[in-house]
């Protein structure tokens, strides 16, 4: 199917995001397809109040949430390969007495003068892609789908404590990755 150009340009991004969230490329393709159909049908109603990508990401979010909540479950999340006491690089960030290791902090200021906004967003995506896939999916259930932690815990059968650890570690890892990227532009 030929999509209007203004939608087609975002297709690859939507697919990457859907795959990160759903973990299954076929389910992701379905969600993106439904998103583009909905967007094409509603294109005349798009006011431009938000960027096109944000509008499409919002539609995709609803499609994915529908998949979860209609009990047409996404590919199940398997955390068995991830030890929750595994440092995954987190252990190097703090000393034994709980202080930041200064060498892991990097620069405070985002180099907005040397990196354009899109480059910064691309860096975020790169760092998202570098997260382990299953924790990334859980992280996106919270950050992208906006699911409450209680709902995520129920959906994934994780304890609230384990869920909190997974979300925390994902955020720490993203921070470290993004800041490394900032530092490499100097």
């Amino acid at each position: 199917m030929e999509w209007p150009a203004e939608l087609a340009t975002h297709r690859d991004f939507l697919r990457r995001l859907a795959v990160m969230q759903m973990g299954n490329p076929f389910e992701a393709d379905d969600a993106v397809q439904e998103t583009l159909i909905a967007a094409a049908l509603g294109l005349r109603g798009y006011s431009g109040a938000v960027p096109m990508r944000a509008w499409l990401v919002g539609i995709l979010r609803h499609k994915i949430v529908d998949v979860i909540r209609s009990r047409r479950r996404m590919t199940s999340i398997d955390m068995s390969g991830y030890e929750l006491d595994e440092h995954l690089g987190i252990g190097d960030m703090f000393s034994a007495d709980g202080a930041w290791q200064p060498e892991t902090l990097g620069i405070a200021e985002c180099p907005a003068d040397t990196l354009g906004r899109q480059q910064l967003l691309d860096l975020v995506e790169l760092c998202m892609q570098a997260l382990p896939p299953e924790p990334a999916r859980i992280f996106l259930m919270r950050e992208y789908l906006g699911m409450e932690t209680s709902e995520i815990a129920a959906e994934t059968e994780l304890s609230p404590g384990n869920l909190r650890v997974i979300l925390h570690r994902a955020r720490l890892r993203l921070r470290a990755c993004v800041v490394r990227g900032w530092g490499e532009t100097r």
Partner: protein
Amino acid sequence: MTDPSDLLAGGIRCHDAAWLVCDARDRSLDDTERHALDTHLARCPHCKVAGQQFTTLFSLLDEYLGKPPVRE
């Protein structure tokens, strides 16, 4: 070397402050937590840097995920 007075600024360590900064994405901090975090951030130069980084990261993440900007 970390100044011991910074280590427990607000009664919490940097590691705890990082937890609270991240937890605040998922829930409202209670008054005790908020006070401890604010005190620590005001006194710990490392957490001040990390706090700025997290603020920028979350702003970029929200934009990447198509969320509307959070009004202060």
